[in-house]
């Protein structure tokens, strides 16, 4: 195998930068815990410069460390789908945003990449798409860590079979969305005073009129909207991947080895409908 035209039989072990991953994850968790437990000077005397700074630096820095740890692990086949996941996120998210919808639909690309190429690629897609979207819409920027979390969780859910049946997908979406909503709430509160679209702000207003603190109201709203959003996103992604030709799915080792789509990820699918036609 010393031929110059062939590669060594075993693929070179990908360097893993687990230190960066651990650091990034720890920074994000620490930031969240700090924001929620310390709840620095909620409202009373202005908004506390430390809180917004911590949320920006902690979540962005944590996201950057995660991406730095993930990049060396990515194969070329995962690498080429991340940009298209990012482009899908932004393109569809812009449309949904401009229509003033109550849901964001800005994670379709992230979840799609996570289902096909795994949790690491999904997390990188989420973090980088919010970072890049920040170029067009700066309000997306601080949510990078939350988006990475969505990609990570979607990939793990896919690995454990959430996309093998279409009715599992909304359940997984509900759980992932709830977690994502809880994580995103402090960012929204401390960076922007929970400003969002009219739809999401109306929900916050309801809780505020019942006397909730802003962070509590925003968290409840996050639980509602993000869950609904991720239920729709997961169902849409499930329906898209079921409609993919096998050849397109097979090019992803993750989807193949973990049988992410059930029998659709490997051998020929049994045909679902139409076999009963009256035609000869």
């Amino acid at each position, binding site marked *: 195998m010393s031929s110059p*035209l*062939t*590669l060594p039989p075993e693929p070179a072990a990908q360097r893993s930068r687990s230190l960066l991953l651990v650091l990034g994850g720890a920074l994000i968790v620490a930031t969240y815990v700090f924001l929620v437990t310390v709840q620095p000077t909620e409202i009373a005397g202005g908004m506390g410069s430390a809180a917004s700074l911590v949320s920006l630096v902690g979540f962005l820095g944590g996201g950057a460390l995660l991406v730095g740890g993930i990049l060396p692990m990515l194969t070329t086949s995962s690498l080429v789908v991340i940009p298209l996941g990012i482009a899908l996120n932004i393109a569809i998210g812009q449309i949904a945003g401009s229509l003033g919808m109550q849901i964001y639909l800005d994670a379709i690309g992230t979840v799609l990449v996570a289902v096909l190429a795994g949790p690491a690629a999904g997390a990188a897609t989420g973090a980088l798409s919010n970072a890049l979207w920040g170029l067009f819409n700066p309000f997306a920027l601080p949510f990078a860590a939350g988006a990475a979390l969505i990609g990570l969780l979607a990939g793990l859910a896919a690995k454990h079979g959430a996309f093998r049946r279409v009715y599992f997908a909304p359940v997984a979406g509900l759980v992932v969305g709830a977690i994502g909503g809880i994580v995103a709430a402090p960012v929204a509160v401390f960076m922007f005073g929970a400003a969002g679209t009219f739809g999401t702000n109306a929900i916050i207003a309801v809780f505020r009129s019942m006397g909730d603190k802003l962070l509590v109201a925003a968290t409840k709203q996050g639980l509602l909207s993000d869950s609904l959003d991720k239920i729709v996103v997961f169902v849409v992604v499930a329906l898209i991947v079921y*409609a993919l*030709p*096998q050849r397109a799915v097979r090019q992803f080792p993750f989807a*193949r080895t973990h049988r992410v789509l059930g029998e659709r990820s490997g051998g020929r699918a049994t045909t679902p409908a139409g076999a009963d036609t*009256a*035609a000869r």
Partner: protein
Amino acid sequence: MITVRSESFTYDDGVPLLSGVQLAVGAGEYVVVAGASGSGKTTLARLLAGLVGSDAGCRFRGSITLAGETVRFDGSPADPRIDRAAWSAAVAFVSQGAWGQLSMMSATVAEEIAFGPSNRGVPTEELRRSVHDVAASLRLTSLLGRDPRRLSGGQLQRTIIAAAVVQRPRVLVLDEPFHGLDEDSAAEVAAALDALRGAGTAVVVCDAMLPRSGPADARVLALAEGHPVFSGLLTEARWAGLRRYGIGTAGDPPGLPDGLGSRTGGLGSHPDDGEPTDHAGVRPQDSPTGAGAATPSPVVLTDVGFHHPTGAGESAPTSDTRSDSDTGPAGAGLSGITLTVRAGEIVAVRGPNGSGKTTLLQHLNGLHRADTGTVSVLGQQIRRQPTGTFAGDVGYLFQDTDQQLFERTVLREVAYGPLAAGVRRSEALRRAADALDVVGLGFVRELHPYELGFVQRRLVALASIIATGSTVWVLDEPTGGLDESARTGLARLLRRHARSGGAVVMATHDAAFATAVAHRTIWLDGGRLVPDDPGTDGRMDGRTVEAEPADRRRGLGWGHGRTAGEAQDSQDGRS
């Protein structure tokens, strides 16, 4: 130089392809691998490119010898893995589908060409030098500063070729490099290949048809269903009867006329079936609509004018499938178009790129709305109704049919049209199955559309229109990329539709096809109807359309054909 010996090649559980195929390419040779859709020519191209073992689900048994070194494959997981970076330094590959071969991270053509060497760390000055060298030899110098996503089809294809050969490989393998190109663009690409061959690069072109012209020593390997059926010189291949394997010659008319009536049961009943096609201008429907004036003509355009909204020009549908379609950045609008298409009539719309052909076609189903004048389809004037409401009456075949496919089986895909038109589900599925039988795809009903080849996918889109039962068929470059049998089949279907009282309007660059199938041809230039072909030298002399020299269609101009330079001259010469 490079030799492929294939004992067998299998995709998944499929039938073995390429059994007993051997192809050796020597330095500076020109080899055409010809075969209809599904013949295995793409597989052979990918073997030459060293793309083996990289796609999961393929098993290759055989060997590839490159520059004296033999790599052996047994179809087992222990097979060697080819180092594609090293391989491509000797054998460059240009596959189908332009977008997948752009890195998408280059803002200019020059950066895209430089992408490979810059990955290998070639210093900037040397990078610029080699980019300029290769650009000069492929006549790309003036395009180096352009955005690769905004090029015409021929320019894009030459950019991709330049990016593949900037490392000076000894062999260049191209899979259907002329697919979707009009004749001038094809001539540009052919001239580029000619220039590379002049510099000593061997060229392997995989195509569905034999080129009309080529270098005197060009060789042909013809494949049919994975087996070699001919190997020899191009000059001999033309007379080797390859048509029975579905391999025609570019620019020939579709194999319609002789024996058609007797062979095809369902189609043979009509009296004009056996009629020779070359009476085109005067032929069928001597009494156009049986019902006389009672039925209105299916398509009536009266003094239609249209301008592309400013700014939308850039975003207008042009980019995909390297279409040199008419609505490019400088896409013409329309002015003063008056056209009536009678029932039973097939009208070809022709004209140079950017003349407004696609724009005109898209007025017929409401994708574009006329600024002035009126458009009526089946007696109903198109005003502000949603575009989707015309789908039942007007079947539209896009140049890039893949943009329409979204269902997971062919049958469901075809059934969508009738369902959207309000037909009951069981009836829609029955119609879909019938339509698939009509286009000869009944046996792939339950497959995913993307598991079919390009040609079959286009037939699926056609079957959709048939199943919907639309009276008016509007087809944009329907023959682009089709192989011989599909092209002939399409001709037959169009004539059958016309005989049953339908109307067909098609934009096409395929002169021979238009001549054989259409009852009349209208010419567009700059968004206006012109009396005759404005784009060609010697065409203003009033000769009829039928006299069109067939070799204009695909100017694979080696030696005596038209090169890009000559094409340029002739364009300059008109006016």
